[in-house]
């Protein structure tokens, strides 16, 4: 939950009273143009960036108070989050060890992300798509209740995008909270339940997908999410 979050960086207001909630059992898409404040918001939720005012909590508590964080939240903020000289297995082992997870969780995450064949390759030798899969394996290693993914589709091929869609849907259906940002509107429309749109640090819409694509109750015409989104952010 983000409540009245404001972030000022060197005199520039990058978040301005941002409030929204991502619900358990639902996939919430966090959409906005480049520089709208999506990544800053996600980083604030994860306690990486400090808010100037307002608060961001997960399950009612700030994330930075968590003792076993990867079992609460799985996060993917960048595909370059692993040391380039470390192997995928080594990276996941470090994450598992720091959170008291058993070794078997490393193998499980590698299998889930489909990167077992390259598990012993240095991360720096991997393609963007494989690094992204490793990031997803990192996010999923603790079987967390909440997933926060910043543009997880970047670099993924068609098969991986389909795999991610199935995984995220299954996780949400199992009661997990999924919050993800993306620019792939067609894909988002397939998997999300709720939509939050941000522009210039302000929330424009926070609603269900159906309400966003169908407009008001009186308007029955359903339009593609991409079209509705571009109207909302003033780029169409």
């Amino acid at each position: 939950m983000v409540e009245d979050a404001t972030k000022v960086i060197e005199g520039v207001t990058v978040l301005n009273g941002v409030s929204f909630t991502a619900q358990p059992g639902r996939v919430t898409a966090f959409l906005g143009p480049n520089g709208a404040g999506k990544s800053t918001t996600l980083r604030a939720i994860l306690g990486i960036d400090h808010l100037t005012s307002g608060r961001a909590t997960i399950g009612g508590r700030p994330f930075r108070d968590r003792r076993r964080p990867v079992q609460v939240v799985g996060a993917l903020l960048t595909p370059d989050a692993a040391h380039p000289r470390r192997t995928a297995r080594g990276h996941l082992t470090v994450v598992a060890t720091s959170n008291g997870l058993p070794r078997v969780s490393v193998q499980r995450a590698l299998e889930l992300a489909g990167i077992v064949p390259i598990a012993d390759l240095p991360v720096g030798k991997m393609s963007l798509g494989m690094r992204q899969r490793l990031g997803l394996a990192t996010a999923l290693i603790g079987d967390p209740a909440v997933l926060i993914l910043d543009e997880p589709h970047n670099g993924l091929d068609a098969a991986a995008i389909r795999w991610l869609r199935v995984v995220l849907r299954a996780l949400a259906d199992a009661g997990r909270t999924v919050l993800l940002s993306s620019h792939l509107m067609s894909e988002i429309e397939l998997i999300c339940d709720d939509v939050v749109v941000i522009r210039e640090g302000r929330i424009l819409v926070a609603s269900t997908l159906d309400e966003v694509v169908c407009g008001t109750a009186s308007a029955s015409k359903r339009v593609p999410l991409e079209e509705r989104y571009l109207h909302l952010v003033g780029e169409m």
Partner: protein
Amino acid sequence: MKIATVRGQWLSAVLAVMAIPVISFLVVTTGGLGSGETSTSAAATGSIAGLLAFGIWSAMITAGEYAKGTMVTSLTTVPRRPVLYAAKLTATATAAGVGALLSAAIALLVVLGVRAPGTYGLGNPASLVSVAMAVITIAVIGVSVGVITRSPSASIAIVVVALLLPKAASGLLGGLQPWIIGASPGTVVTEVVGGTQLPVSQTFPAGTWAAALTMLAVAVVVAGGGAFAFLRRDG
């Protein structure tokens, strides 16, 4: 664990361990020791090389994380910043301290092996613990400076300047010279292991142990600065 899973980091640590024995070997075999030296003080002659190597290595642990963008992963897997910072300081200082002890022990064995019979007395081998203490000090400073600057090149420059500049620019320090040079890690090691007689201008006026405590106090202050930066700034 993090160090062990990156080849470059543990290779650098191994090279840092080798720095002191190599210098000691060169000094002993080239006849570079004075008559008042002991095997123990000869084993510590390469301390400044070890301090530089471990200091740079430590700075790279944290500054490298920022440079490569992997600090985000650290913060999402261990979001409690005081715990993460303390873990980084403890792990790096422990690894550096153990490495320094090993390095000094190897250096002593090298000196005992290559010295001409009857040339130098043994001295007090236990005093080589001061090498580990000085290395731990510079490791704590390196980790902290890495967090403060977030830049590998700036961190390395600061560590190198902190170790070498006081002696190089001793003439500019005036009355502060014995206080600053005397509490610098290399000088503290020289004082504790004995051997070379330091000039009064480089000897800490309040004594050797006061110099060692001052050195540790400086590390604590820098570590405090690192903690402040780590807790207050965005990741």
